[in-house]
């Protein structure tokens, strides 16, 4: 009996460790490649451990491209979009879940329909709009088109609908205005849904490539994803330098994740409303 449970424990650990190895492998490969001297990058058989360690790659990556500046731009961009999406979605979702108004259902469906409209479709008209607004090469141009989206409205509406209604009726009769009710009751109760939306929005903004490329003109306004593509060379990629760039922009994100991991999970679990 004892024996069996021990075996089980060992097997579980072995399985988990194997999984960890698989998941970490790409990152390991990126890190080791970033530390190889150029002539070792393509060595056969594959060199699993870089020797000698070639820090120069990092120096080169940073001298080619202002990666620090790009990181800053990406953070500003993602923060702005996340904040505004949470704000606009909460307001709109509130209207869709708590106010009865004519045309509510068709309007909601219309918005829902845009859930998967891809950026490639809207890019040319949107660029011209941004240009007319004089926002090319600014944070506004980078972010404003994404200040609202069907996804956030949908997600929060679903959540708001589950919240207990009795309170609402009481509060509105009570003279506690709708607006105050949203901020004093609904939003605190919806931390988990807002957290979820925030995480998702932040990540998808961070991942954008095509729009930031189109709407920024100067190196100073570029974001991380473009920065990495700048390290690529049509006449032959220097993989050790590309990987140095890859690691340089991913490492801060991972460290940030490690620091905020607890808050992240708590944010998503939230003050978990049990309805």
């Amino acid at each position, binding site marked *: 009996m004892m024996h069996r449970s021990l075996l089980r424990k060992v097997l579980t650990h072995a399985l988990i460790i194997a999984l960890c190895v698989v998941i970490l492998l790409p990152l390991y490969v990126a890190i080791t490649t970033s530390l190889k001297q*150029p*002539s070792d*990058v*393509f*060595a*056969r058989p594959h060199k699993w451990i870089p020797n000698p360690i070639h820090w120069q790659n990092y120096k*080169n990556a940073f*001298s*080619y*491209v202002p990666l620090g500046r790009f990181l800053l731009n990406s953070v500003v961009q993602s923060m702005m979009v996340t904040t505004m999406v949470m704000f606009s979605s909460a307001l709109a979702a509130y209207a869709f879940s708590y106010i009865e108004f004519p045309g509510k259902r068709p309007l909601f469906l219309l918005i829902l329909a845009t859930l998967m409209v891809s950026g490639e479709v809207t890019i*040319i008209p949107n*660029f*011209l709009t941004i*240009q007319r607004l004089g926002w*090319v090469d600014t944070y506004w141009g980078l972010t404003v088109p994404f200040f609202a989206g069907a996804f956030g409205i949908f997600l929060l509406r679903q959540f708001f609908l589950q919240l207990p209604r009795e309170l609402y009726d009481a509060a509105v009769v009570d003279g506690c205005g709708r607006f105050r009710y949203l901020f004093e009751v609904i939003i605190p109760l919806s931390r988990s849904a807002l957290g979820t939306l925030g995480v998702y929005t932040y990540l998808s903004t961070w991942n954008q490539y095509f729009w930031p*490329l*189109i709407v920024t*003109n*100067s*190196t100073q306004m570029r974001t991380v994803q*473009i920065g990495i*593509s*700048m*390290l*690529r*060379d*049509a*006449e*032959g*990629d*220097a*993989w050790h*330098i*590309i990987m140095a760039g890859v690691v340089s922009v991913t490492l801060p994100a991972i460290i940030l994740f490690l620091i905020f991991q607890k808050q992240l999970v708590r944010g998503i679990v939230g003050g978990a409303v049990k309805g």
Partner: protein
Amino acid sequence: MKKRHLILLVVTVLLLSLSLSAYAKVKVEFWHGLGGHTGSHILQQFIDDFNASQDEVEVVAVYQGNYDDTLNKYRLAVQAGTPPHLVHVYEIGTRLMIDLDSSVSLQPFLDRGDLELDYMVENVLSYYTIDGQLYSMPFNTSNPIIYYNKDMFREAGLDPEKPPVTFEEFREYAKLMTGDGKYGFGNYAYGWYFEQLMAVQNAEYVNNGNGRLGTATEATFNSEAGVRILQWFADMMADGSYLHTGRDSGALRSAFVSGNVGMRLGSTGGLASTMADIGDRFEMGVAFLPVPEGMERGGVIIGGGSIWMAKGHPEEEIEAAWKFLKHLTSPESTAYWHVNTGYFPIDRRAMELDEVKALHEEFPHFRTAIDQLEASQVTPATQGAVIGVFPEARQAVEVAIEQVVLGLATPQEALDEAAAEVTAAIRRYNIQSGN
């Protein structure tokens, strides 16, 4: 005493900055598509040197993504009325750029006798000269050559100093070098090589003199010459000596520099970086592209890109941009590009410069591309096709290559399909452009 010094210093700085602002340099924005070491280091160094060398023009070079991205960004900027002064466009975008009608022809500048292009390599000049006008300034200019692994030649009992000259020899050598996880020939589906191997046979890609005598209306690359190329690929595939790396040049490069591939086709623009990647793993040689047996060699088409000057900027800025373009074509500038990358020295006088001579002495590889281009006849076939839908045509040809090397179609079938597609695209283009 100290205070006096300080005041003096402040006054000097003030005066200096005043005088500098009086002589404010004219800013020229230059959008380019060169990433990595080439863009961030070699080009940037070149621009910095130019800016420091005079006090009239300040060029600001900005990377705008790869060639496709750069062209798109430029197109949008033109539409929005805010184009940069100069934009770097790949060679196959030439027709489209002319039809966009958003740039200034360089011919008037040349006609006023501002710049002598007598020394510019003829093939380069003729590529960008359409209907007797030079529309854009040739910039990074490359050629395809064979890169080969001399060590693998030796192991296969071949003479490393005698690279293959004909398609048939090439196939033979490739077979000899194959085995043990190694391949005699490595290639990726890339339309440019196909275009080059057409030019080698002096065969045209589209009708109407490759689109140079009149607007092209039909693709003609599904000719005997075209089929011969794909058949050659198919034969090597059947021999098991052909490593196909998809559409990814990076995968091919890794296979070659790691010593797994005996021969590959490649651009001279990557010569310097390939040599760096190989290090002392093996000895590399380069050679002319092969020709089918018994055929007279046509030649090669230049590749790379040129720089266009956008319309709608004040006279003063246009002149400043022109100054930079002039600088670009000087023997010293083209020598700099050649030595650092392997791109072609487009001004022949560059060959007389010490740094170029020294380079050729040490690495004769750099010389090969130049000789190959000089050995080229100048015919519409080697001047290169002029069509607006070149990127689309390349895709179609790349699919045809894939079909053949994957054994899904015969060369003739695959090329017929691709040609039909390209012809349809050309027709659509001609409607779009009103030609």
